[in-house]
């Protein structure tokens, strides 16, 4: 105790910086956020965070966006983070504020999105007394954050916030929660600058071994059927440029997970499209038949691998990941390289070029493979039957893509069929343009995420491709969009069903559509009016383009009710319990395609 006092006394004597001035915990929080470069907070006030809101009142350097629900606040922070590569910040109160934030935190954890969530807590003497709006926030959020803190004193507060940012950003990014009791927000203490804060490393990333790089390049140069399998890690690492350089240098074909879309241009001939459950035929067949798989920043998720024991049976696998726990978790690999995707790919490219000076890579080695892939591609697995009288959902997304080409466009989605159609028919040439809930699969993600994206990019075109069911989960955020003049476009693929649930019921449960029909949908046009936004409805294919143009021209937040055919399924599809080369294509499906074993799987 005495030593601690002495040290702080010494600091005061030595340092003449203004940081020694005593400030309230609430001011210290904002000072720390400011030093971390935060300019926007998404939040919702309440009793236990009032001191912080009071401090925000006279701080013009930080903009606060008042959301309508704490889940929305965290998703908006996620959208902000994913579209900028910066850390998103949410501010919520104790009790229900914190529990409402849980879904967003879990979402950010599974998709590795750097988020700081600051929550209020009841004053220290009340903790554990079942006080009003008290909950065990650190206990509840322990398993859905990368790390969390209960700030025990104002003295530790600014240091904790700096460390929280460090942890959120470093290694595999993720959400960090800082729970601050109300009396700590009032307590006075000195500020700890970022440079003096403790920065614990969660994972010590080892140096990249030359041997491993040489081994990897050796495998790559000898491969006859290579494929790059890339994920969200490439985008998190900001390594799209390195990926493009490596892919172009090698000429290898490339597929991305749902999370990795945009890291490689979809317009490039080397691009195979998305892989996985609803991925393209060429991507999945290439994964199944390859002799060398180079996985960069992806984690062999079950949506991607399908049946594990039939997953790419004859390939050697190289896995590049920043998180050692991702390696050999689901699929054993032959060579694991732990490190930042950008640094590893830089090293691989350098090694490839070095080898190239000794002996040119023989492109003929992979020529046959590329021809085989072209054969699969020629089957056009994303083809669908157009209809004259009703709008097909695939057509709607296709038109939306065509009419927004060349614009500065960001896409978010909810979760379900529309999400898969968006991934299949909207194409991305740049990273950080595609925000979707991949890991947790959170319906209601897209609308608030779009709001966060629009705050970060005020002049960009931000579209939430939504479903009629998902969008109602966070519809209230329309109110926030109108309040802050954020002209997000919510493009609702309205089939009046919980579409993906209905599709599974059709394929797995004998067309018994148990509680998947949305009766009594709201009139989305009137709803837009009620919020003060702009409502548009399109029901016929011939009016679609003009209506989309109307949406794009609107300066207001738009709810676009795109009424589509009701019982369209997402194809192609790897049924549960099947392998990559057993895809179901569109057309007649009898319902017998899925084995009894497959039916128990999600």
């Amino acid at each position, binding site marked *: 105790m005495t030593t601690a006092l002495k040290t702080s006394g010494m600091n005061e004597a030595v340092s003449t910086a203004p940081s020694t001035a005593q400030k309230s915990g609430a001011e210290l929080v904002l000072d720390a956020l400011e030093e971390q470069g935060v300019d926007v907070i998404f939040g919702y006030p309440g009793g236990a965070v009032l001191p912080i809101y009071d401090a925000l009142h006279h701080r013009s350097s930080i903009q606060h966006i008042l959301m309508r629900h704490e889940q929305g606040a965290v998703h908006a922070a996620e959208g902000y983070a994913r579209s900028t590569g910066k850390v998103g910040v949410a501010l919520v109160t104790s009790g229900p504020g914190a529990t409402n934030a849980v879904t967003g935190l879990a979402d950010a954890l599974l998709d590795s999105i750097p988020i700081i969530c600051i929550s209020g807590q009841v004053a220290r003497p009340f903790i554990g007394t079942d006080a009003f709006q008290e909950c065990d926030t*650190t*206990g509840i959020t*322990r*398993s859905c954050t*990368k*790390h969390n803190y*209960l700030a*025990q004193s104002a003295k530790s507060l600014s240091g904790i916030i700096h460390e929280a940012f460090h*942890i959120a950003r470093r290694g595999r990014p993720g959400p960090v929660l800082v729970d601050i009791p109300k009396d700590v927000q009032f307590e006075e203490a000195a500020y700890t600058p970022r440079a003096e804060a403790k920065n*614990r490393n*969660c*994972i010590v990333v080892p140096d990249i071994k030359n041997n491993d790089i040489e081994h990897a390049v050796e495998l790559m140069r000898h491969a006859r059927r290579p494929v790059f399998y890339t994920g969200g890690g490439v985008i998190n690492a900001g390594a799209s440029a390195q990926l493009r350089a490596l892919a172009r240098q090698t000429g290898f074909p490339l597929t991305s997970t749902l999370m990795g879309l945009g890291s490689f241009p979809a317009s490039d001939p080397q691009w195979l499209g998305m892989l996985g459950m609803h991925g393209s035929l060429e991507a999945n067949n290439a994964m199944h038949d390859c002799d060398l798989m180079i996985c960069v920043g992806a984690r*062999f*998720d*079950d949506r991607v*691998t*399908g*049946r*594990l*024991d039939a997953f790419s049976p004859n390939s050697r696998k190289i896995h590049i990941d920043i*998180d*050692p*726990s991702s*390696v*050999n*978790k*689901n699929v*054993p690999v032959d060579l694991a390289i732990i490190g930042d995707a950008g640094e590893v790919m830089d090293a691989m490219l350098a090694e490839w070029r070095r080898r190239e000076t000794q002996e040119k890579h023989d492109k003929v080695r992979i020529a046959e493979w590329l021809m085989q892939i072209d054969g699969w591609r020629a089957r056009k697995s994303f083809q669908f039957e157009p209809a004259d009288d009703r709008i097909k959902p695939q057509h709607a997304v296709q038109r939306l893509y065509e009419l927004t080409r060349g614009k500065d466009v960001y896409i978010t989605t909810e979760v379900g069929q529309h999400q898969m159609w968006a991934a299949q028919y909207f194409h991305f040439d740049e990273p950080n343009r595609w925000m979707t809930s991949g890991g947790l699969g959170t319906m209601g993600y897209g609308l608030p995420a779009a709001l966060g994206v629009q705050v970060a990019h005020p002049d960009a075109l931000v579209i939430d491709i939504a479903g009629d069911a998902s969008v109602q989960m966070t519809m209230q955020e329309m109110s926030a969009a109108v309040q802050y003049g954020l002209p997000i476009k919510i493009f609702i693929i309205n089939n009046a069903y919980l579409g993906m649930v209905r599709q599974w019921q059709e394929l797995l449960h004998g067309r018994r559509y148990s509680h998947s029909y949305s009766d009594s949908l709201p009139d989305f046009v009137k709803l837009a009016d009620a919020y003060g936004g702009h409502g548009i409805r399109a029901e016929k294919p011939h009016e679609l383009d003009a209506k989309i143009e109307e949406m794009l021209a609107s300066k207001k937040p738009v709810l676009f009710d795109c009424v589509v055919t009701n019982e369209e399924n997402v194809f192609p599809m790897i049924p*549960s*319990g099947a392998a990559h080369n057993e895809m179901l294509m569109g057309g007649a499906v009898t319902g017998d395609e899925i*084995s009894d*074993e*497959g039916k128990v*799987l*999600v």
Partner: protein
Amino acid sequence: MNTTTTPSQSVYPVTPDQGAAKEAILTVIVDNEPGVLSRVVGLFSARGYNIESLTVAEVDVEKHRSRITIVTSGTEQKIEQIKAQLGRLVPVRRVADVTKESDALTRELALVKISATGDHRVEAMRVAEIFRARPLDTTHTSFIFEVTGARDKINAFLDLLRPLGLTEVSRTGVLSIRRGAETD
């Protein structure tokens, strides 16, 4: 069922059974801060790993470091996964697999209560002597022994005492340390 003909159909990230499960003793050095034990234990329950025993105490007061010793079991791949997952926790400083070290010492302490009279009492005392168990407390109808040793030794001691009136056991769980000058 028909496991011999059809392989696993699971698309869940269930680790395929590669080799037999074996026991592993993990030593985890952590920052002693509020909630750290629950992070470690929560990780095990959330990911479906076993805990056979768990021991924790602060070992470095100045640096606020605690040492957690966990006995768990799983395939080689599962144990590697457990170590990697533990490594992701922010307060975890080091994880070492003691079972991988041929020179690790492991010990456990147990307090054992016997309620017995007559011949059983005499026999219990004799067994205790052989196992170098110390009587800590005695009445005309009971003994409490303190015994330390490797887990197998304690199990053997308990097996011998069971027919002699064993009524209660309290065990610390396994502790471990490396032989020689090297540290974990």
